[in-house]
């Protein structure tokens, strides 16, 4: 379980997060919704200690991430897979090397075991026979799939998705949404998805946190979000939905 408590963060003069608080329950997908530039990605990076909050705490399985040493943070990161917005594949390595990198460093497996494991990870995300391809030859959707394969290669408990469908056409985005659902159902992974795509959020999410002006406007289940009477939440859902539905048609 991940508990995010009263997180504050300022970059220069800009106050990005103002007391964000919500919980992420085990084996559920929690979607953090909010407008672009609203601090969602910052929040995601704080969970694995890539960015330190100015105030507040983040507890992962009862341990406060903000108080951890660098060594403890590296230990914590074994529990996490992270899909970056642009996939962040290492462009000097092939797809196979991208996925095998952490397996080689952290497992002590033989070359054969590593190969089998990376092929399985690629198979899970629906990509076969691309181990020897360079990331520059892949489409945006394929890069995200490889990024996801790399994120799940070490079988993490938690996967963090940073804008997983941004910049993808609707068909590819649907494929990624399906994968996120499968990760939870097949592998029992707890996920946090940050997105501004409300359609994608409703497809993958079990619980939702809506960020507005750096604070959590509301947190709750799908029904609670859809039936919210809060004017700001309604405004956010209504302003986002037509665009998402427009894409569908």
């Amino acid at each position, binding site marked *: 379980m991940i508990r995010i408590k009263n997180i504050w963060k300022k970059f220069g003069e800009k106050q990005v997060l103002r007391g964000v608080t919500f919980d992420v329950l085990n084996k559920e997908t929690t979607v953090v919704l909010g407008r672009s530039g609203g601090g969602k990605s910052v929040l995601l*990076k704080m969970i*694995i200690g*890539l960015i330190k909050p100015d105030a507040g705490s983040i507890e992962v399985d009862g341990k406060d991430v903000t108080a951890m040493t*660098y060594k403890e943070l*590296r*230990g914590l*990161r*074994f529990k*996490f*897979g*992270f899909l*970056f*917005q*642009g996939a*962040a*594949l*290492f*462009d000097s390595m092939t797809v196979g090397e991208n996925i095998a*990198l*952490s397996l080689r*460093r*952290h497992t002590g497996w033989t070359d054969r075991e590593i190969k089998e494991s990376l092929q399985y990870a690629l198979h899970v995300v629906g990509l076969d026979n691309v181990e020897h391809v360079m990331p520059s030859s892949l489409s945006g959707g394929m890069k995200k799939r490889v990024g996801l394969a*790399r994120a799940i290669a*070490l079988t993490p408990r938690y996967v963090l998705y940073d804008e997983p469908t941004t910049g993808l056409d609707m068909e590819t985005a649907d494929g990624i949404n399906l994968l996120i659902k499968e990760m939870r159902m097949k592998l029992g992974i707890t996920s946090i998805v940050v997105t501004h795509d409300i359609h994608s959020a409703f497809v993958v999410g079990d619980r939702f946190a809506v960020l507005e002006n750096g604070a959590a406007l509301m947190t709750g289940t799908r029904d609670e979000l859809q039936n919210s009477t809060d004017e700001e939440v309604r405004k956010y859902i209504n302003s986002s939905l037509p665009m998402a539905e427009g894409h569908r048609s």
Partner: protein
Amino acid sequence: MAEIDPGIVDDRRFTFFAFIGEHSSKFFGHLGKYCALMWWTLRNIHNAKEYSRNIYQQMVTVGNDSIPIVVFVNAFVGMVTAVQSAYQLYDWIPRAVVGSLVVKSVLLELTPLMTALVLAGKVGATITAELGTMRVTEQIDALEALAFDSVSYLVTPRVIAGMIMFPILIIFGDMVAILGGLIGSIAVANIPAEAFIKGMKNSFETWDAVFGIIKANFFGFTITSVACYQGYFVEGGSEGVGKATMRTVVLTCLAVVVMDFILASVLL
């Protein structure tokens, strides 16, 4: 207690001091961050075996890939030194002195300095652009997310490779420059090879070559570490990478000439 009028900071009498304060604060901020990065880089040096593959790759990039430019520059450095030395000597000075001048100038100063300045551009810019691009495309964050120590993985191998390969390149450059000097003497200044070699042998001292190698070691560390710092902490997207790369070339060139003076003052 009386409050300070905020408008006082706009007072022209204080602008100069505000400028000095602001910039020295920035300078010490960068210096502190650079020292912290180097601390993390060097504290993991005992784990070099773990990163041997990366170190080897970087040695190839810093060393092997720089050989053509090192050969080209030093061949001309040697030739120009020989021709200009011959031009400056009077007829009654033995021609063998050209060989002495070339070997002394090349080993002590010209090859280490010229090679370092060229590599500041080539190696320094490459490292900053590589790490900077990795930073802005979140590849460094991805490494950290995969439980890697990104400094040990990216910075330590580059700095080690620089410290190993710069001296080797400069030994290589010394040989090419002396050969270039010999060719320049024979072809342009009409000095017989025997006279050049005789002069060279008379003035050669092992310490001169060792001094050049010591300088190369310092230059290698400075260029790669500054380049890594600029790339690792880059901000501002692709424009930021461009600016950081430019800063690397300028800063490393300045650092090299200042360090050249300090090392000469201390060691000679």
